[in-house]
């Protein structure tokens, strides 16, 4: 694949969200598992909103503000089952205009 850079934040900027400030609906259960036990860290490239970021020190951080609520992160974390996944509180999260 040729190298192109895609800024997913620019894409997400077009979307309509009602962020439930202070109440992330997805949580990493145990951050140490991501850092030390998970090698692939596939959530950091499979998440279509790039909510999961691999940091320089090998940790994985999660910011759910841009979440598209697809569920991929939960399903692919089969080896570690380390994603605590719920839907956002009613009325919050992504609000598709066209769908």
């Amino acid at each position, binding site marked *: *694949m*040729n190298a*192109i850079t*895609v800024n*997913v934040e620019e*894409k*997400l900027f*077009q*979307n309509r969200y*009602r962020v439930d400030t202070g109440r992330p609906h997805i949580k990493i259960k145990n951050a140490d598992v991501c850092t030390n036990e998970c090698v*692939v860290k*596939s959530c950091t*490239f*499979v*998440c*279509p*909103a*790039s909510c999961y970021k691999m940091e320089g020190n090998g940790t994985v951080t999660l910011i759910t503000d841009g979440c*598209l*609520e*697809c*569920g*991929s992160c*939960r*399903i*692919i974390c*089969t080896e570690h089952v380390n994603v605590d996944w*719920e*839907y*956002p*509180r*009613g*009325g919050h*999260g*992504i*609000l*598709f*205009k*066209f*769908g």
Partner: protein
Amino acid sequence: MKKTSQFDAIVVGAGPSGNAAAYTMAKAGLKVLQIERGEYPGSKNVQGAILYANALEQIIPDFRDDAPLERHIIEQRMWLLDENSFVGTHIRSEDYNKPPYNRYTILRAQFDKWFSSKVREAGALLICETTVNHLIMDGDQVVGVSCDRLQGDVFADVVILADGVNSTLARKAGFHPEIPAGNVALAVKEVLFMPEETIRQRFNVGEESGVVIEMIGRITDGMMGTGFLYTNKESIAIGVGCMLGDFKNNPNRTSPYKLLEQMKRHPSIAPLIEGGEMKEYTAHLIPEGGFHAIPQIYGNGWMIVGDSGGFVNAVHREGSNLAMTTGRLAAETVIAAKAAGADFRAASLKGYKSALDDSFVMKDLYKYRDTPAVLHKNPQFFTSYPDMVAQAAKTMITVDGVDKKTKEREIFANFRKTRKLTGLVGDAYKLWKAIR
């Protein structure tokens, strides 16, 4: 601890399956509560989207009068793409351009809102912005749902789970396990707006008619999946979806949005979407496990419809019509059970399964029962084949002084170089068998 039922039925979710179920029950005079977590019906829902008229016709025969339909499809293109070219078929017929039309592009957020207005006209109560946290059990029977609001418990004789592909409620209740990554596709899509005239010119269509392009090949970076481009009234939906397990195991660690961006830059696609203003970027899972992945779909006081039950025909890219049909059949089962004064235990709801078995839903899913496995075991369908075909086509039509017979030999040699003859024959047989 069983509370008295406040409703005959609760429907969780206001997508096509939930709306079909709520509409059918409300029409029959049942007291229905429908609970949707989005701000409005459709605000959490994503589809390409193609609407097949038939399933909706059986629920709302005159839907064409006021449903928000974008364009009816008069042309279907199937493209195989290599790095910088495509080979394809275009099927276009005036037969598709005569009402009543059979297929339409729609924008789901608008369509679901419309469908929901019909559901409410039929008499169902809808509450939005409310997430159902879990099912309420009385022993082994579902008797209601618990929502994320204060005093959030509500009770009904039966709960229809139309809560989408993640099937959160049934999963939490232990009705079925997590969907495996190999049984679900992750699709991303953008909606690109452009003047209506531009769409008419670029796709050679009229004011109301439109084109569908389905694509396989290099665009999926070796993963099992397809790309699509649909024409709406004044926008284009463009997307790509691959099996989630393939995304996870992709050695290139290609992100879905990068995949889509690359597809948009393909020289065969870029001119079609040039100048389009991206106004929404969406992602969604599609249950593609097919027949073998359908879970138990009813039990004591509960039924599953739509994506939540995995009702998608991946080969024909059909989902919403299966969803509506499952919703309708589940509703009819409830209506019959109610009329019979049943206790809504599993035995009184099994008519749902047999009605499904008799319908196109299970018949089609059965017909293609082995397709997902065959395709998945043979990634060449998505990788080398499109390349080979494109190469072959180019060789045949390039006028360069080489005779056609020699060219055929070249093509054949190229095919064999890429894949052994026995493999080619075997593939053809497998594919034929899988989608026959």
